[in-house]
């Protein structure tokens, strides 16, 4: 009996996801117990250790990976690239949802408001809707070639938004702070905070990889079943 490749990808995805979820719990404990309380913002500042790595992975890994896979799909027409782009875009929706919920919860005690139509927030919300549109489109087109082609265009548009989201804090005056890590000079954080933040980056990258692997494996299993049914 030969091993089903979809099942082995799914198993790998489950292991990575479980490890990453344990890691998320570790990051939260590190933030609560082993990271100092910021003098001006108080405990609410510790939202940073989930919000910032999540936003970084969404904007600098998940969305660009979707865009690059989409470009390659339009060029090579390899269904694996379309499957990967779809998996990465779905995980990007989840990460963006966390960014768009934890951000306002942090904003309320610090800015005095849940939401403001600041450039960074507005563009991130727009990206979230674009990603939702990506999945609505995939659900509404039956032909796999057309589905791959149309959704690839949206995937590329999502990637094109990322530099504008990053630069929005420099381009327009708003409430959202400027980056503390991804900036030309050295990170402006004390070591205790930087340590927890860097652990967070590692853990949320692992979570992205786990989710995408699992989602890719599920799509592979479904595609193989559809091929078998059609044959």
């Amino acid at each position, binding site marked *: 009996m030969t091993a089903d490749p979809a*099942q082995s990808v799914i198993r790998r995805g489950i292991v990575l996801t479980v490890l990453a979820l344990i890691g*998320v719990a570790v990051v939260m404990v590190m933030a609560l117990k082993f990271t100092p309380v910021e003098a001006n913002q108080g405990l*609410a500042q510790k939202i940073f250790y989930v919000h910032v790595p999540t936003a970084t992975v969404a904007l600098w890994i998940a969305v660009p990976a979707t865009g690059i896979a989409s470009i390659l799909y339009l060029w090579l027409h390899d269904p694996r690239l379309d499957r990967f782009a779809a998996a990465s875009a779905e995980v990007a929706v*989840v990460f963006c*949802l966390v960014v768009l919920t934890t951000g306002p919860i942090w904003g*309320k005690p610090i800015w005095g408001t849940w939401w403001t139509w600041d450039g960074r927030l507005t563009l991130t919300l727009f990206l979230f809707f674009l990603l939702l549109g990506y999945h609505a489109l995939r659900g509404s087109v039956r032909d796999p070639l057309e589905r791959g082609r149309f959704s690839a265009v949206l995937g590329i548009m999502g990637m094109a938004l990322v530099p504008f989201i990053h630069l929005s804090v420099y381009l327009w005056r708003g409430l959202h702070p400027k980056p503390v890590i991804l900036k030309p000079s050295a990170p402006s954080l004390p070591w205790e905070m930087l340590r927890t933040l860097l652990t967070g980056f590692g853990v949320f990258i692992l979570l992205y990889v786990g*989710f995408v692997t699992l989602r890719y494996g599920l799509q592979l299993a479904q595609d193989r079943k559809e091929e078998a049914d059609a044959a």
Partner: protein
Amino acid sequence: MPPDNGQYLFAAYTVAGVIYLGYALRLMLRARRASARR
């Protein structure tokens, strides 16, 4: 003295935990169904 706003931290971590865990469980349930269908 830092402001007393721990409830926002608790809310944010809970929301993030529920979203991530919820999505992971959804994928794992689908994986179980896919494996049962084989």
